[in-house]
């Protein structure tokens, strides 16, 4: 039962995300049109309608009454939109966007086992009522002017008729394509035709021509609305048994009778074989309407109501049959499990390698040894491929989270009455699924900050000679083994002076210390916990609200946040993340007799440690590397390791230089063991508060090695100057009673 609920939640989530994307597309079309008639893609409106319809069926099947009621009303609204009975306006979209949020609230409540949020749902239902009641009628169109078979017009569904009218109103030409399809291949044939026709127009409907068919084939009349000429269409759609004619206008005006509703089922049955994927698509609106007319009890309690919705559910699931065949939704834990198996296989592989080497060393088994060697190499290669394959499966495009952000931008900018243009690049950049999940909150926070406090009010922008519309750029790109995400605004920028003043007032830094701070170190203060309390927020116009949380969350993913800002010009936040959390190359080192793994992504170089080159500056050990000062970190001391009895540090130690962002730190280690691909496993919840490690990994023979969290160590040692540690000390002091 719990599994079923999870399944429902994840399926619903997916549908809602799709719905949100559709709405964003509609919003974009609306913006493009300015005040004029939006050229919305009918497929998108349809998609949104189907999404809500599917949600209705699903939620009532699972007894989520409020979601079902909500979907039911939304469906009405979307049905009106797609049939052109009402206009798509910004106001209507507001309501629909709100619906997405309420859906998400419902899912959150459901997951947590809490009662459904009634207030939000009721408020939305009221708004929906207002939106639907203001629906206007579609203008009459010159359908009768065309030389169309009345029989054909008679069997158009309401939706098809609407599309036909819309196209004709916009002056699009009408064509009749007569095509012959083999019954055995009609599905693919029709799809192919549709795919080829799509760039040039819209297929309104298709019906059997009633001629030219035989036992193995059927001839269809396809009605296509297109701005192309007949010749162009003939050239792009040419094929055997296919003819194209323009439907001409004629003078006469025979009244178009309303399509008799009873006709609908029959030709549909004739038109397409039962397995054709189009059948349910055409049938849904009809069924949905029927269900509604029948009173469709959405309370979810009564058995007949459930049955009805179960029938309605069949439609959309039939629709997605092809999609399901190509994509599989997999629990990420299953992939983790596969990854673990691969890791164990890798251990078997090394053992096999050792045996192979031994066999090859025996002269009498030379041939056998060679053969074993070949097999081992092949195993090695395939195992590598498998590992790569599993990793690839975990990767999803960042677009998933960007879509959500686009919604946030729209919502907040409307709330604040700021005109904002969100420019997204690199939405196709892929990262590990787990990272994407964890990214949405921090990014949302950054975007919210950019709108709230970055982008100035209109008059301020005009004064500064900036365009009325503020721009927030969301850029993602891959850089080696990392993904970089930038959130950039052309707003007011951060005032360093005021940040510094606040930092001094909070005792984070003394006036003497502040003189030596670099601009980036000053900006770094906004990431400190406790920096942005309430009064600090208003003084700094809120910059830095919760930025410490952002930093912590990004840090947990093994990433870093950097901020650059220019007063009056804008602010850029840069998030740098590893592509995947699952497997990384690491340098295995020994510290205090224990083995640790250092992610290679953070390692710049390793060199011999020269104890005589160490200097002390302000109580910190530094050395020089190619003329530059390099801060040192004695990991053994930092970790408080006690050496196994009777051992002392080796005479020759090494320095591993790690780099995070533009900062570098030299870690002193006993020895370097070598590079190794490791699978990082999370430490248990009970160790979450422990700083300095991102996880653990198996280093063979049952031994576990901890993976050092390079950004955390760098931060602990370096960033931003003493402030971080000062805050820590003050906190401790306060907790102990009187602060010193």
């Amino acid at each position, binding site marked *: 039962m719990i599994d079923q609920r999870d399944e429902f939640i994840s399926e619903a989530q997916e549908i809602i995300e799709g719905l949100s994307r559709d709405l964003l597309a509609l919003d974009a079309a609306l913006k493009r049109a300015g005040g004029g008639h939006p050229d919305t893609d009918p497929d998108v409106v349809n998609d949104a309608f189907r999404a809500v319809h599917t949600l209705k069926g699903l939620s009532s099947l699972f007894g989520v009454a409020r979601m079902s009621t909500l979907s039911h009303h939304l469906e009405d609204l979307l049905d009106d939109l797609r049939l052109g009975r009402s206009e798509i306006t910004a106001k209507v979209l507001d309501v629909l966007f709100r619906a997405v949020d309420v859906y998400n609230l419902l899912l959150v409540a459901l997951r947590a086992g809490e009662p459904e949020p009634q207030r939000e749902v009721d408020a939305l239902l009221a708004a929906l009522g207002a939106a639907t009641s203001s629906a206007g009628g579609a203008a009459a169109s010159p359908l009768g002017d065309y030389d169309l078979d009345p029989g054909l017009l008679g069997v158009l569904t309401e939706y098809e008729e609407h599309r036909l009218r819309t196209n004709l109103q916009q002056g699009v030409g009408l064509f009749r394509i007569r095509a012959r399809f083999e019954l055995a291949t009609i599905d693919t044939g029709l799809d192919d035709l549709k795919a080829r026709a799509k760039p040039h127009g819209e297929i309104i409907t298709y019906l059997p021509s009633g001629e030219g068919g035989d036992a193995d084939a059927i001839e269809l009349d396809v009605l296509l609305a297109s701005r192309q000429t007949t010749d162009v269409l003939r050239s792009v759609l040419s094929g055997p048994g296919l003819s194209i004619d323009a439907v001409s206008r004629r003078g006469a005006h025979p009244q178009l009778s309303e399509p008799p509703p009873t006709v609908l089922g029959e030709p549909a049955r004739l038109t397409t074989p039962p397995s054709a994927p189009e059948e349910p698509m055409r049938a849904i609106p009809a069924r949905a309407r029927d269900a509604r007319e029948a009173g469709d009890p959405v309370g979810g309690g009564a058995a007949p109501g459930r049955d009805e919705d179960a029938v309605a559910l069949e439609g959309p699931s039939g629709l997605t049959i092809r999609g399901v065949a190509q994509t599989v939704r997999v629990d990420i834990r299953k992939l983790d499990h596969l990854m*673990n*198996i691969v*890791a*164990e296989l890798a251990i078997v592989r090394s053992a096999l390698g050792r045996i192979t080497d031994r066999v090859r060393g025996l002269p009498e088994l030379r041939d056998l040894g060679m053969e074993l060697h070949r097999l081992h190499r092949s195993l090695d290669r395939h195992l590598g491929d498998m590992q790569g394959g599993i990793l690839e499966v975990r990767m999803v495009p960042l677009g998933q989270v960007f879509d959500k952000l686009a919604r946030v931008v729209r919502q907040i900018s409307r709330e604040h009455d700021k005109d904002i243009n969100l420019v997204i690049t690199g939405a196709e950049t892929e990262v590990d699924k787990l990272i994407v999940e964890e990214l949405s909150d921090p990014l949302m926070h950054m975007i919210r900050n950019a709108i709230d406090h970055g982008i100035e009010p209109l008059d301020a922008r005009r004064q500064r000679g900036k365009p009325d519309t503020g721009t927030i750029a969301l850029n993602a790109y891959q850089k080696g083994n990392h993904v970089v995400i930038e959130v950039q605004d052309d707003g007011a920028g951060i005032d360093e002076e005021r940040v510094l003043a606040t930092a001094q007032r909070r005792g984070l830094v003394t006036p003497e210390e502040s003189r030596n701070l670099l601009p980036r170190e000053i900006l770094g203060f906004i990431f400190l916990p406790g920096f942005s309390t309430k009064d600090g927020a208003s003084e700094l116009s809120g910059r830095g609200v919760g930025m410490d949380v952002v930093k912590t969350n990004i840090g947990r993913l093994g990433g870093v946040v950097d901020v650059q800002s220019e007063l009056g010009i804008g602010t850029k936040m840069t998030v740098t993340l590893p592509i995947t959390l699952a497997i990384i190359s690491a340098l295995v080192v020994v510290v205090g007799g*224990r083995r640790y793994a250092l992610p290679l992504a953070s390692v710049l170089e390793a060199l011999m440690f020269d104890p005589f080159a160490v200097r002390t500056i302000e109580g910190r050990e530094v050395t020089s590397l190619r003329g530059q000062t390099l801060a040192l970190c004695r990991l053994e001391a*930092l*970790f*408080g*390791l006690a050496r196994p009895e009777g051992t002392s540090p080796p005479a020759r130690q090494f320095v591993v230089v790690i780099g995070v962002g533009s900062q570098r730190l030299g870690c002193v280690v006993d020895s370097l063991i070598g590079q190794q691909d490791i699978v990082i*496993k*999370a*430490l*248990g*919840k*009970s*160790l979450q*508060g*422990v*700083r*300095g*490690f991102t*996880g*653990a990994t*198996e280093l063979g*023979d*049952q*031994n*576990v*090695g*901890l993976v050092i969290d390079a950004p955390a160590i760098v931060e602990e040692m370096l960033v931003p100057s003493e402030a971080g540690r000062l805050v820590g000390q003050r906190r401790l002091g306060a907790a102990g009673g009187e602060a010193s």
Partner: protein
Amino acid sequence: MSRRADPVARRGALARRAVERGARTEFLAFRMAEEIYAVPISYVKEILKLPPLTEVPRAPADVMGVISVRGRIVTVRDLRKRLRLAESPSTRRSRILLAELPAEQGGSGERVGLFVDEVLHVYRLAEEEVESAANVLGSELAEYVAGIGRQQGEMIILIDLRPILGSASGKGAALPPALAAAKGAD
């Protein structure tokens, strides 16, 4: 559950006799320092011999380290530290109990290793054989003790795993009937 418990249970004649007496809660008894402790066996998923332990710098004092159990990293905690018992070095008999408190019983859902000096056997205790801990022990340790079990003249300290394996909001969560009666206060 009983599959893993069986080899242990077979050793205890007590346990077999108890089976005939109807509904009871099963406890896995173990030794730490010189005392006998027990936890409800339904929380114990596995008993392991001591694998190589990797210490975790700067972890809480009762964390002995981490181990790998079939590819999963498990934190091993030292109950002796929590219960302020004498710590002797591990021996041939030392074991790690892999325990997990389900979320609906106030647990964090994390599987945690508990270090014990020796695993003894399984007790099946009826409600009336469990005595409230509040009467017996000082308040300091009472947090970790769910009750005292008495059977055949033996005294077993029943450990409440919630403060050890629980999420912070463990209060009021379901305990096995025998323990619920003993803790009373909940």
